[in-house]
């Protein structure tokens, strides 16, 4: 687990800085864990049951590697309506991946969920940056999700599909 090597390295950097930054950092990390731990457990539970009821043949047909543009467009279309952050999205993306969804559709879905997620736009962006900036940003990133899906499709075409996770 390379991540623990990185933790140790950043901890050392923080430790060498003046003050108690290393202490604050560790505390912040554990706080994050305490707050997110219960949600993660129920999210995994939900994703496990959902993956049991997902109609695999339909997922594979609509979002599979062979679905091509259609899979990418469906991914783009559903992304904005995934509420919440990665906590909600990732377990579902994993369930879809295991049910046969292709990488291009999933990358397109993740890209719209992050650039066009409506819940973040209404809760944070419009209140804090205003409607004009939000409109400018949305317009500027309109091409991102389909492009991301297309690039992912090219990668799969040339390198083969990525390994299924654990």
């Amino acid at each position: 687990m390379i991540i623990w090597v990185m933790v140790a390295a950043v901890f050392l950097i923080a430790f060498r800085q003046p003050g108690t930054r290393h202490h604050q950092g560790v505390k912040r990390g554990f706080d994050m864990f305490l707050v997110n731990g219960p949600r993660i457990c129920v999210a995994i539970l939900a994703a496990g049951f959902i993956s049991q009821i997902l109609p695999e043949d339909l997922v594979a047909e609509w979002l599979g590697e062979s679905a091509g543009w259609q899979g990418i467009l469906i991914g783009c279309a559903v992304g904005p309506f995934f509420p919440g952050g990665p906590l909600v999205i990732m377990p579902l993306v994993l369930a879809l991946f295991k049910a046969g969804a292709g990488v291009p559709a999933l990358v397109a879905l993740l890209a719209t969920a992050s650039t066009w997620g409506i819940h973040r736009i209404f809760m944070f962006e419009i209140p804090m940056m205003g409607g004009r900036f939000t409109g400018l940003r949305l317009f500027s990133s309109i091409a991102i999700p389909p492009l991301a899906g297309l690039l992912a499709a090219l990668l799969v075409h040339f390198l083969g599909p990525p390994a299924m996770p654990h």
Partner: protein
Amino acid sequence: MRRPKRSRAAEAFGPSFWVFSGVAAIAAWAAWELKGAAAISVALAGDLDILLFLLPRMIGGMLLAGLVQAILPPELVAKWVGEESGFRGIVIGAAVGALTPGGPMTSFPIIVAFYMSGADRGALVAYLTGWSLLGFQRTLVWELPLMGGEFTLYKIAAVIALPILAGMIARLIPMGSVGPGRGEEV
């Protein structure tokens, strides 16, 4: 900040906990109806597997995110993009966005600070896009452990240039003030 600080327990068992519990219960009921009791035990065994695999990686990811936040003061971040402009400003905006840890509670105060310190709108758009598409914390805590290294690499390769593209498009669009209603030119 949007709302006063709540206790950790209230936050941990807030709305999203109950929404997920509800979704889990409904999905469990549907799985039982559709596939019978065996589906439930298969799902639970898989969940336990994922959880055991995920836990050490996720704790590591969160510790890393907390530590990086502690050594990377927001003022410094604001200074980097605030002073740069041009294509370099967009690239820096996207990179700093990708390096900004935390959720919208962290990134939106930072982007407001960028705006105040005079960052150009291309850099602002690149920043938010970089944060949301490539945020290292999201990648470390969620994508890498759940989706595996190969999927994560494919996704990063597919999206890495796109925040810069969005920033360049934003700069091409003729528009006066874009800030939160202060009437200043950005």
